[in-house]
């Protein structure tokens, strides 16, 4: 048991060290830009977690990161690497936007929102189902297939937007109906005034809770994790491995499919070409940093949310791309360190 505690401690310490090391790298870049790192960090913190508007914006940025991280983490638990969240969330957002735009204007709020979320989930589900079934039936590797599907889906959606659904002279679809627009958080907490954060934040937390319960409290989750650890043993025990692989990938896609709710239903009120820009890849980082656990995912998404909001705040002093670099460096250090830690643990156990 003591071993378990030690392991947990190391698991928690790894990301912290990684972040510290990444800060060191960003220090160097800031100094290159002839600015003071301390000043930059001070501005970053003041503009994010030390003022209400900043907090609101951090929540806004964190919401999609939680969902996309959750999506990647869910697949990971079944031993699948979903690198296709980028495409799945694109398709999901598009579907949600269309549903929101073309429902009769009088549809009640709750029904509209649920239908939008469902259509997003379903679109992502289908996008995840394809690589899932290809893996289950033909054994073709999901990583390559999801990368390829990312490009296919984006080209397809862009074609549909440009050809059939765009508002003339723009690259976005028409506005969703009034009843599909999600309530902004400032309506409950006026301190967030001006920030785009909305109630889809609670949707993302709810999704985390649901994933936690499914994975650890249900028979389905028990089987999913068994497949993730040892598919042969699961098969021997009578688990339908192929079905679970397909389903897991599809659910992961479905989770990615509701990532765009925050943007479409809560912020811009339409789908816009290229709105996600790399969010799917950030999801991998969030899942990795969050150790594929819903709780960890929330924490990691929050960190990345602070950073991406922070980028906008510090832009007046140093280029906002600094935080992109910082995020990437964090991932690099985490992935390098975690495998090193795993090996050290393994060695000492031997």
């Amino acid at each position, binding site marked *: 048991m003591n071993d378990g505690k030690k392991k947990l401690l190391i698991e928690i310490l790894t990301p912290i060290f990684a972040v510290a090391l990444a800060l060191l790298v960003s220090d160097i870049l800031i100094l290159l830009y002839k600015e003071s790192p301390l000043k930059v960090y001070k501005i970053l913190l003041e503009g994010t977690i030390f003022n209400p508007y900043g907090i609101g914006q951090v929540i806004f940025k964190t919401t999609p990161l939680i969902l996309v991280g959750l999506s990647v983490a869910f697949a990971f638990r079944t031993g699948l690497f979903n690198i296709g969240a980028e495409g799945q969330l694109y398709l999901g957002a598009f579907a949600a936007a269309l549903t929101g735009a073309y429902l009769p204007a009088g549809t009640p709020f709750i029904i509209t929102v649920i239908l939008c979320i469902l259509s997003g989930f379903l679109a992502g589900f289908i996008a995840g189902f394809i690589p899932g079934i290809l893996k289950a039936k033909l054994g073709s590797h999901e990583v390559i297939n999801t990368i390829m*599907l990312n490009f296919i889906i984006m080209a397809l959606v862009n074609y549909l937007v440009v050809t059939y659904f765009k508002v003339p002279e723009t690259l976005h679809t028409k506005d969703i109906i009034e009843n599909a627009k999600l309530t902004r958080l400032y309506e409950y907490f006026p301190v967030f005034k001006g920030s785009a954060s909305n109630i889809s934040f609670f949707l993302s937390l709810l999704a985390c809770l649901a994933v936690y319960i499914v994975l650890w409290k249900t028979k389905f989750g028990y089987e999913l994790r068994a497949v993730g650890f040892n598919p042969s043993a699961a098969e021997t025990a009578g688990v339908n491995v192929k079905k679970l692989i397909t389903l897991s990938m599809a659910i992961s896609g479905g989770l990615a499919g509701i990532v765009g709710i925050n943007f479409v239903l809560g912020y811009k009120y339409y789908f816009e070409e290229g709105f996600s820009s790399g969010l799917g890849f950030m999801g991998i980082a969030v899942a990795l940093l969050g150790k594929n656990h819903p709780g960890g995912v929330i924490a990691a998404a929050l960190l990345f949310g602070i950073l991406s909001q922070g980028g906008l705040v510090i832009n007046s002093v140093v280029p906002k791309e600094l935080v992109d670099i910082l995020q990437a460096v964090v991932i690099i250090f985490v992935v390098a360190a975690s495998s090193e830690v795993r090996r050290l643990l393994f060695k000492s156990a031997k």
Partner: protein
Amino acid sequence: MWEFLTNVFSIVFLAQLIRISIPYILAAMGGVFSERSGVTNIALEGIMLNGAFAAILGTYFTGSPLFGLFSAVICGMLTALVHAIISIRFKADQIISGVAINLLSVGLTKFFLKIFFDSSSNSARVEGIKIFKIIPGNLQIIETINQIIGNPFIIFTAIIVVLSHYVIFKTVFGLRLRAVGEHPEAADTLGVKVNRIRYVCVLLSGCFAGLGGAWLALDQHQFTDGMSNGRGFIAIAAVIFGKWSPVGAAAACLLFGCAEAIQITLQSVGSGIPSQFIQMLPYVLTIIALAGFIGKSTSPSAIGKPYECE
């Protein structure tokens, strides 16, 4: 229809095709070396981007595109070195490492674009690669032919493809790298330095993909934000489609390039096929190839797995 055919079967079209395919081919050669040795390299995308930026930066400060190429190679190899260290030394997940490097490259190039060119979208214009006039004359068609055969870069790329094929299948180093990608333990027990070979191969991939990026940038005479634009992934698709052989991968690149060139030609003519569908083609073909519908596409067996020596 006739107009379409004359457009496609023209020397201009050929020049277009080659121009589009060169960066794919270069990056794909890098992909072949890396993957054959057992290291998945989706960082090709980021390496190309960094290479493109370095090429412009080098050319901008020295005025010599040759030095630009040199910078691209160095920068590409440095980026690849990061991937190599993470995946070989730290034995970390190669896909995640690739994703991180791609994100890092986007951030870094933007950051330095601001620093050096004070812009968030593009660099200053620089001189491109010098085209030699092999055939004298001023006709449009001769001009175009010269652009192909007079471009040292194109000739160089062709040589790289042939040379890569030779190296992988006919030399001692090639045998070792294939063995390392298939059965690292076997290679290790016979005294082959598994990780050293993997380092060399990943660095080679950085060198080639960096050159691919350099072509992109020098061809445009400037760097624009995110200009690799998925080309690294197309290169990976080509590697798979070409069954991990240099000539096969190069042929796949030409096929993908051809599709793109047709798309551009069609656009200028104004045909009915939406450009997005042609964009999808390489990716759809790759999925079909992986599913085993076009012959069998089997990857090196040790691919993506770090080697743990005893």
